[in-house]
């Protein structure tokens, strides 16, 4: 398991994982417009990470992402989410400070069917990014921990 799986798997992984990353980030980014959002996109990104881990083994990825870094990023994502909640506390917790202001993500949403401009939603896209960061790192940390656990099991 140390050297990863067969050459077919590794080749396919090389082709696919970039696509999975892009798709995951797309889902996070369009979370306030289409089905999906931070959690789903984060899970897709984490699945790309899991794919790499399975195909190449932990040797090929450990230098890149370790549990320590993942944990710190996860906490930062959670804190960012909470911070966005605190940002609106002048009115109420989680108040959407940016919506319809014309500033960052502040365009007014048109009623009825429309193409969905990305520049809407106020703090929702930002929250999606925060959640996405937390989920992608969180799930990656879980996958990493479980794989290391399984590896130790095999070694015993």
């Amino acid at each position, binding site marked *: 398991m140390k050297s990863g799986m067969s050459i077919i798997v590794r080749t396919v992984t090389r082709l696919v994982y970039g696509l999975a990353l892009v798709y995951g980030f797309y889902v996070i980014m369009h979370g306030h*417009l*289409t*089905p999906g959002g931070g*959690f789903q996109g984060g899970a897709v990104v984490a699945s790309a990470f899991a794919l790499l881990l399975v195909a190449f083994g932990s040797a090929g990825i450990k230098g890149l992402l370790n549990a320590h870094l993942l944990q710190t990023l996860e906490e930062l994502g959670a804190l960012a989410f909470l911070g966005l909640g605190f940002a609106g506390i002048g009115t109420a917790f989680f108040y959407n400070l940016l919506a319809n202001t014309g500033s960052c993500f502040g365009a007014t949403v048109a009623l*009825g*069917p*429309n*193409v*969905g401009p990305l520049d809407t939603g106020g703090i929702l896209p930002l929250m999606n990014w925060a959640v996405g960061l937390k989920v992608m790192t969180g*799930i990656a940390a*879980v996958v990493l*921990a*479980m794989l290391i*656990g*399984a590896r130790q*099991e095999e070694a015993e």
Partner: protein
Amino acid sequence: MNLGNMPFVAAALLILLGIYAVLFKRNLIKIVLGISLVETGVNLLLVTLGYRTDGIAPIFTLAPRAGPMVLPTPQALTLTSIVIGLATTALLLSFVVWIHRHYGTLDVRKIKELRG
């Protein structure tokens, strides 16, 4: 029999199957699977509750037509419940890993050091 009720029947079946697995299966991983089955059944029920005949997906972006949409609230609930389910399943499975390491077995009837 009204076919529109099939999702409810499926949800009930899933829940009952899950309870069966929790009660009568001896392997810890199968018990975790049973809990996941119950969860899937409940999620199916929630999603079904939001269905409206001829409704379209509740997305304004590129909506095919203006008309009744299915309720987004149950879908949001289901999503949240799936997220929670992920966390609980991950926690349960990591307990299973450690139990196997300590006890050397996954038989639920042999893991009873704490009793009485």
